[in-house]
């Protein structure tokens, strides 16, 4: 058996065109120690939570990349760092091939915009939709002041809202409409990357579909690159081009959506797929059930971080911390037994 070489992630298929966003070795530590004083006087503890531990990822132009994983895997931390609301502890962020400065100026922060999970708490209840958009358009000088009204109407049309929404307050809208307003707000400053943190999980099923369609059309019509953080794998499968799976602060598998779901090469991805509630199968399947819950990021297991829950773990898995390596064309996995997993075909119904 030959061990594949460690491939740097910069290997880009669309020749010459650098990815719109690339992160390498991104690490985020949160210091959760008690204060120095209380550590001196009592027996307080020094504790560091490593939310991200060497994340490697790239977002290509015009693609929808989904980021999936359990709570505590670091999905939201990564989203926050990319959008610039939190600083990374270490690692690089490249935007169009050039390093992104640690302190972003107005223009740099404009390029990457975020849509949050809860459209009830992410919109200012005291601003009308019109004044919300006007503020942004003027601050970033997107259009001359005279055209602000026109531009606001264009934004609302873009996200499928009526023009009279300009005069209304967020409380006058339903959840799905509010999420559209949040998207219009993100688009107002003409970003080229949209980071959406669970944008449909707070919405009812019947409106979820319209918001998903909106994301697809924004990518198609505006050429936006979208990082879509989600936990609903059926939604991910429907919308995204590529999927990155996170586990305890690391990316453990990346592949094209169809390839990832047809041919998962990391046992964790496999477990996620087998946990999806299905419309076509009967009672809950036991094909590949994960025991236990994600371990605490305070206490990451040695070796492969997934080994305590992994049904395929061997002694080697408890010592070797596997790197993300190419296992098939455009398919990366961080598992030393990745090649053996191909024999365990995913149950199809």
């Amino acid at each position, binding site marked *: 058996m030959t061990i594949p070489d460690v491939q740097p992630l910069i290997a880009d298929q669309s020749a010459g065109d650098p990815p719109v966003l690339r992160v390498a070795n991104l690490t985020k530590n949160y210091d959760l120690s008690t204060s120095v004083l209380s550590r001196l006087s009592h027996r307080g503890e020094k504790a560091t939570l490593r939310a991200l531990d060497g994340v490697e990822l790239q977002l290509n132009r015009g693609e929808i990349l989904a980021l999936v994983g359990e709570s505590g895997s670091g999905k939201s931390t990564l989203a926050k760092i990319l959008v610039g609301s939190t600083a990374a502890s270490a690692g690089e962020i490249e935007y169009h091939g050039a390093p992104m400065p640690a302190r972003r100026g107005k223009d740099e922060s404009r390029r990457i915009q975020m849509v949050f999970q809860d459209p009830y708490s992410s919109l200012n209840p005291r601003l009308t939709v019109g004044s919300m958009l006007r503020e942004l358009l003027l601050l970033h000088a997107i259009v001359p002041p005279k055209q602000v009204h026109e531009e606001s109407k264009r934004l609302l049309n873009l996200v499928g809202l009526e023009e009279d929404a300009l005069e209304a307050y967020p409380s006058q809208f339903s959840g799905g409409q509010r999420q559209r307003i949040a998207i219009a707000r993100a688009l107002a400053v003409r970003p080229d990357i949209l980071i959406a943190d669970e944008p449909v999980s707070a919405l009812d*099923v019947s409106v979820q*579909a319209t918001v998903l*369609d909106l994301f697809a059309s924004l990518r198609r019509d505006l050429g936006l690159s979208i990082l879509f953080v989600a936990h609903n794998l059926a939604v991910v499968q429907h919308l995204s081009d590529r999927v990155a799976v996170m586990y305890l602060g690391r990316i453990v598998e990346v592949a094209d959506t169809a390839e990832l779901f047809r041919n998962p090469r990391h046992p964790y991805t496999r477990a996620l797929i087998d946990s999806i*509630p299905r*419309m*076509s199968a009967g009672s*809950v399947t036991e094909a590949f059930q994960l025991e236990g819950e994600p371990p605490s990021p305070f206490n990451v297991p040695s070796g492969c971080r997934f080994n305590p829950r992994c049904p395929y773990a061997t002694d080697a898995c408890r010592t070797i911390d596997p790197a993300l390596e190419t296992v098939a064309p455009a398919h990366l996995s961080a598992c030393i037994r990745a090649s053996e997993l191909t024999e365990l075909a995913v149950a199809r119904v």
Partner: protein
Amino acid sequence: MTEPLLSVRSLSIGVKRGSADPTLIVDDVSFDIAKGERFGIVGESGSGKSLTLRAIGDLLPRGVEVLSGSILYNGTELVGMPRSSRRKLMGPEIAMIFQEPMTALNPVVRVGEQIAEGPRRYLGMSRAESMTRAIEMMAKTGIPDPVRRARAYPHELSGGLRQRIMIAMALSCNPRLLLCDEPTTALDVTVQHQVLRLLEDLCDDSGAALAFVTHDLAVVNQTCTDLAVMYSGHIVESGTVREVLRDPRHPYTQGLLDSAPDFDRPERPLIPIPGFPPNVASRPSGCPFAPRCPLVVEACRTAMPPMETVAPGHGAACIRADRTSRELVAR
């Protein structure tokens, strides 16, 4: 036919507003749950599914009350029963699992103690016996190291473990009916899978019936035997899970199925339901789904269609139920 364990008839729940007509949130809902059955109630937010469940458990929020109808549990009328005798049923007969275990558990009492309280009060166990029972229940729900975990406070446990504590608490007195209000919505998909399987196993073992409220049709498909679909306070379709999900007859059920992504059919385009559910205070006359319905005809707007049997064990409240599946598929 044997008598059902729970029989809900013409249940209406609402808010009284002085001398004006009360606002109906749940309107004329009827269903039966047999012994050991797993019954799912599906609907979107505001459909009245949770209030229906809470009415059975006598846990309606302040100001919201049962306006009319009957809830027969094992032949005993629950509506209008004095609160003291009603409370005696909660625990040994009917128990409830909530969506968010962090707010449902007492944050300042150790979890073992919280589980032991039920058996001590209702089964007459001593303190030591009830603690043994609590630890036994924790082990049954798959909590590792239950003796140590029994001494933990809720905040020291993960979401999945807290939900297992609630299940252990609910099942500690061997109830015959378990009410579940979105018990897995707050959990990760891998943990949801574990908790659903656990619920199935425990109900199989103890013979408890399950009333399971959720918005996720796939979860119902995997967990329940029968279901009712609620829309704007009404049950619009009901029957066995197999019948209703394979051959939906109400356009709303069809719409829910069409709008949710199905993991096994990734190529299928999603078809959203246009419009929004009506405000309960100003529900349109006639069928509440009429303004959003692709098959609407004039007659739909005049009277609420009655629930009619469309196939054995399958009812739909739609005057066009006979054509629904055929015409929508043709679309």
